[in-house]
């Protein structure tokens, strides 16, 4: 709070009020809380999605009592969605986990933290190679950094992965394939500047509502924004679209190739841009052992590219995708125009796709081919589902093949740099990638004697018991395997804790210090505002305590080059602070220490982060954040663009300075249309698509404990077209079985509901732990991103007797 006296404070408020009134303005302004009133407002990013809205959190008597959209935040400018407005209530669900619990004779019984930390350390020490850590895009940057260091630099194991594997890893492989470096070149400012926004299988009105409003509210200010909704079902986004183009599942590759075809055939591609800044690329032949061709492919000439896209005439695209040829031409013409600014936006529709890397590459490709990139309003931007999928998992590198700052474990130089920065002996970091998510869980769910070499798993801040595809195979089998041990750190009982052997109660959101990184490269910071309930403690502390226990047990990996513990922390006087003891954890700001240790990692790929204290002042900063000659720190909105990115060479308009081909050029990929691995047939005649709804965030463990959100959207349902319902003789609200080759669940039918699928397709949201649609879904995944396809599999709808 301010250190001014009450009188000055009140006078400033009085003047502000009078000034606003004198100016005759109706703009809102606020008066300060007077010292002593007990109400305290502080900034924090919202706990939920990857948009990265900032909220103002009001606390009083140690509890959160109100939330407001942060008017100072660039991202949301004071607006929130219904989840954000109610985010404060996530702390207060009645069944918060407040004590460590161990499963004894089938029941979870309370134990002490001392015992719990000992059990985890013993399990790891027993079989370090069989231990895996499964984290999350909801890990704070500090937590992810600690987890990554603990595993890769401490245990020397790469068996750490995270749920973003299920969420945005196809976006990563798309960016890597195209630009040689991850994350979008553009940012949310493009939403304010584009003339056309194209939704690629993206229900933005429900999934990123604040960003969607940023777009559509321009219309009420008299601006023209054309929205093209490429979709398989009618959604709330469709209601705002100028064109709703329905395509058959998997038809998106054909549409993108059709646009490329028209740009080439009509000669409307941006020849100058392409010659100066692009190379063409295709996959090589598959290797003899049946493994897919290398991700980064091989060169092709423009002529070869033109020939490759030649078959994708509008008529052929109509055949493959169902989008009328005339509409395909309209899209081609749109991209061919230089005077339109086009922003492509996507999320899970393109990422949860057995051809996710391919479709991501193709959308970047048509933007590059037509020069619709790198100027405000022209961008191809993937939107992220979790608050720090970017900041933590992609940037800190908590995936099985990554090291912090865009490094990979397979690169000897990268390993050496990481060992240097972490001050651990050379050779500590393993050169082979660990198991990716689906593989990790498959091995955990396979008897050890049959090759299931993961025996102990620690899951933090995520709920794989609900989100993994094909849950019987990938999660539930564990129940009958005696030699497997599952540790879960969470805040509420979930479908994952249901099978846990040890449950650790965590602190969440404003119960701890934290940093997140959102979809537009924006790194955000907040401080702890309230105490966690009962004995709940932060995930970062939990890992630190286990690491210390292993150090005390003499585990060599927990020692750095100097023989000191790898998380050795000192105070200003140089004395060691025992941060492994909970009562001393907040003696220093561990989050800040970890962030400052992490910062040097970010330089290699020009993802420079500013000092921690800069983020304390800001509502997030977009990297690269580069210090100016006057000492200030400047964020970057458009990466690779000469007018904004300080790393672009002087006098150059664009420079893709992490180019795969090392010549500062981006890659335009050709990827053919192919059919998906499972399609409807006589036995399973419907396409099943799964997804989210506005009111609930992911598995609903937080939002379903908020009365307002739960009451608005109480349970899962199956959306079905009225014609199909009539044919099957199913009434609205009637409970049917949704059945696949893998499993079945019962759901009420919703006809003309939240969304409206085409005939032959059904949609089911995955938020409801009482109705787990992932018992039904398919676990086929993209060969490069290893991201499963939750959007397409074949099901039957069966009437109950």
């Amino acid at each position: 709070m301010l250190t001014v006296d009450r009188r000055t404070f009140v006078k400033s408020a009085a003047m502000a009020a009078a000034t606003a009134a004198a100016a005759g303005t109706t703009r809102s302004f606020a008066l300060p809380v007077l010292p002593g009133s007990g109400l305290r407002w502080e900034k924090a990013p919202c706990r939920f999605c990857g948009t990265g809205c900032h909220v103002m959190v009001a606390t009083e008597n140690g509890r959160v009592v109100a939330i407001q959209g942060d008017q100072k935040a660039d991202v949301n400018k004071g607006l929130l969605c219904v989840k954000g407005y109610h985010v404060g209530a996530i702390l207060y669900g009645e069944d918060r986990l407040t004590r460590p619990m161990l499963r004894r004779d089938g029941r979870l019984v309370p134990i002490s933290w001392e015992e719990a930390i000992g059990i985890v350390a013993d399990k790891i020490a027993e079989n370090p190679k069989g231990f895996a850590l499964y984290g999350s895009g909801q890990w704070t940057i500090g937590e992810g950094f600690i987890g990554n260091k603990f595993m890769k630099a401490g245990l020397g194991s790469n068996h750490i992965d995270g749920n973003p594997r299920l969420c945005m890893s196809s976006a990563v492989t798309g960016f890597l394939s195209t630009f040689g470096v991850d994350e979008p070149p553009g940012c949310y400012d493009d939403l304010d500047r584009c003339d056309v926004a194209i939704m690629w299988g993206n229900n933005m009105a429900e999934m990123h509502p604040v960003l969607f409003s940023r777009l559509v509210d321009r219309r009420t200010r008299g601006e023209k924004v054309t929205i093209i909704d490429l979709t398989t079902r009618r959604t709330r986004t469709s209601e705002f679209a100028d064109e709703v183009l329905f395509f058959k599942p998997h038809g998106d590759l054909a549409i993108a190739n059709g646009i490329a075809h028209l740009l080439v055939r009509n000669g409307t591609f941006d020849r100058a841009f392409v010659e100066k800044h692009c190379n063409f690329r295709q996959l090589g032949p598959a290797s003899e052992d049946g493994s897919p061709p290398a991700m980064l492919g091989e060169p092709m000439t423009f002529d070869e590219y033109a020939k490759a896209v030649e078959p994708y005439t509008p008529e052929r695209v109509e055949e493959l995708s169902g989008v009328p040829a005339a509409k395909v031409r309209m899209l081609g013409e749109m991209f061919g125009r230089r005077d339109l600014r086009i922003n492509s936006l996507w999320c899970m529709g393109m990422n949860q796709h057995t051809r996710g890397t391919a479709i991501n590459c193709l959308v970047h490709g048509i933007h590059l081919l037509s020069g619709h990139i790198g100027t405000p309003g022209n961008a191809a931007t993937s939107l992220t589902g979790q608050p720090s999928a970017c900041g933590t998992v992609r940037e800190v590198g908590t995936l099985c093949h990554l090291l912090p700052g865009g490094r990979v474990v397979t690169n000897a130089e990268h390993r050496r740099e990481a060992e240097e920065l972490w001050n651990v002996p050379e050779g500590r970091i393993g050169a082979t990638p660990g198991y990716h998510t689906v593989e990790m869980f498959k091995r955990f769910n396979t008897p050890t004697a049959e090759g299931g070499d993961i025996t102990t798993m620690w899951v933090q801040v995520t709920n794989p018991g609900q989100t993994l595809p094909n849950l019987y195979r990938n999660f539930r089998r564990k129940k009958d395997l005696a030699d497997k041990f599952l540790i879960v750190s969470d805040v509420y009982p979930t479908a994952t804790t249901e099978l846990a052997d040890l449950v650790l109660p965590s602190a969440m959101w404003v119960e701890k210090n934290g940093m997140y990184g959102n979809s537009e490269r924006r790194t955000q910071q907040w401080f702890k505002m309230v105490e966690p309930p009962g004995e709940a403690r932060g995930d970062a502390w939990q890992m630190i305590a286990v690491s210390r226990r292993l150090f005390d047990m003499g585990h060599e990996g927990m020692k750095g080059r100097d023989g000191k513990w790898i998380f050795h922390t000192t105070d200003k006087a140089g004395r060691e602070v025992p941060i492994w003891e909970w009562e001393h954890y907040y003696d220093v700001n561990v989050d800040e220490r970890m962030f400052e240790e992490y910062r040097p990692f970010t330089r290699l790929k020009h993802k420079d982060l500013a000092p921690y204290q800069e983020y304390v002042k800001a509502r997030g900063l977009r990297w690269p954040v580069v210090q100016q000659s006057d000492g200030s720190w400047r964020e970057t909105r458009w990466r690779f663009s000469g007018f904004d990115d300080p790393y672009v060479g002087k006098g150059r308009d664009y420079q893709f300075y992490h180019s795969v081909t090392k010549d500062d050029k981006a890659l335009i990929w050709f990827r053919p249309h192919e059919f998906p691995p499972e399609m409807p047939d006589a036995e399973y005649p419907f396409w099943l698509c799964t997804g989210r709804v506005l009111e609930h965030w992911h598995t609903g463990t937080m939002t379903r404990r908020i009365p307002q959100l739960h009451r608005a959207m109480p349970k899962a349902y199956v959306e079905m077209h009225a014609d199909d319902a009539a044919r099957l003789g199913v009434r609205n609200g009637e409970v049917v079985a949704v059945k696949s080759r893998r499993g079945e669940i019962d759901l009420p039918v919703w006809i003309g509901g939240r969304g409206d699928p085409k005939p032959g397709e059904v949609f089911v949201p995955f938020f409801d732990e009482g109705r787990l649609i992932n018992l039904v879904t398919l676990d086929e995944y993209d060969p490069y991103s290893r991201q499963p396809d939750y959007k397409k599999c074949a099901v039957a709808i069966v009437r109950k007797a």
Partner: protein
Amino acid sequence: MSISGLVLTLDGDPPLAESAIRVLRHDARITLGERTGERLAIVVETGSRFEDEEVYAALKSTPGVRFVDVAFVEFGSGEEGAGDADG
């Protein structure tokens, strides 16, 4: 202690408005703020509610001041509240 934020609407005749501002400037209880056209923001700080009302009345009768509008009011704690006589 009583603090209020007021908006004065000054006379359309510039010399008259200026003379009003000169008068206000010499009153230590009054802090002048931003002026937007004929509207001027001020803060009045006095020792009591009673004195505050006196200033308010004085302002209303100051030549060059056409209207006085109240934008903000704060009374020191412990004082009796204002009598809201009208319904």
